């Protein structure tokens, strides 16, 4: 009898230990899964290569040139038109420099998630702008220019300039940075005058 009770107790203890182990294992697996998912969400994307940076610069400039060309075509506001002409002129000039430098360095621009995202967002925004007219268009175009230049400056500061390996490419990005900052100021001035 005592032996029977002892055996039952042993089995219960074993079951409890097993249950506790399973619970611990499940908790550990769950924690691992959570940690991995969290890491995947917050892990920085790998640094872009110089070839990817070259493509990002070309796409970023081209997107703004396309916005500018549309604005020159659609706006009736002289200040908006002059701003848009400047965007087309400046971003075309920066693009020419970037392409010439890539050629000089023997770098073929390579598409990346960033360049693809810039391109697809640019197309979507262009579609939205095309549907607008008059002051609605002017305000939307200028607001987009403010947001776009802020995003590109952020990209330059946090990703492109720190990641560039080639000294000439890094120098080109650094030289372009104050130009984009001045464009942003110009766009903000215009935005303020349009809201009056």
């Amino acid at each position: 009898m005592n032996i029977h009770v002892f055996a039952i107790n042993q089995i219960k203890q074993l079951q409890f230990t097993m249950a506790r182990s399973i619970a611990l294992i499940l908790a550990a697996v769950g924690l691992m899964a959570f940690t991995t998912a969290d890491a995947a969400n917050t892990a920085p994307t790998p640094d872009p290569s110089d070839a990817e940076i070259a493509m990002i610069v070309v796409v970023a400039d081209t997107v703004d040139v396309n916005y500018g060309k549309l604005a020159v075509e659609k706006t009736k506001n002289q200040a908006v038109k002059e701003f848009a002409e400047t965007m087309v002129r400046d971003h075309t000039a920066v693009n020419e420099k970037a392409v010439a430098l890539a050629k000089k360095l023997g770098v073929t621009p390579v598409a990346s998630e960033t360049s693809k995202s810039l391109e697809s967002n640019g197309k979507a925004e262009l579609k939205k702008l095309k549907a607008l007219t008059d002051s609605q268009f002017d305000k939307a175009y200028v607001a987009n220019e403010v947001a776009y230049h802020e995003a590109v400056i952020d990209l330059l500061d946090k990703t492109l300039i720190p990641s560039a390996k080639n000294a000439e490419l890094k120098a080109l990005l650094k030289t372009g940075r104050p130009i984009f900052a001045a464009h942003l100021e110009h766009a903000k001035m215009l935005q303020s005058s349009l809201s009056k």
Partner: protein
Amino acid sequence: MKTVNSVFQFQLFSVCALVVIVLSALTSCSRSSRGGREVGDSSKTLPTAVTVSLVSMQSLQFLPAAVEIKKGDVLEWKNDDLVPHTATSPQFNSGTMAAGQRWRNTFTESGTFPYICNFHPQMKGVVKVK
């Protein structure tokens, strides 16, 4: 004998011609340098000490933004930026200057001349001519 005379005459002619050429060249040089000095001495046509001051266009700024020069001096703008610029005022206008281009203006009157870049309104400069 006749042949010897002919040769002598030819040699004499050649030497004379050479002397004339050299003298004429020297006279011409002398006139030219005297003329340069005369022009140089005339403060109305070409001041003796024309200074060329420089303004660099970079990072969407005129550097230096304020320049003080003397009447008759020359100011040269150089576009050291990636993008085109202008140096424009009611008194002068460079027109579009692509990256790397230079443009000069001679200031013949005293005064204060504010100017801008036609493409970038935040780019402002001033030339003070004494």
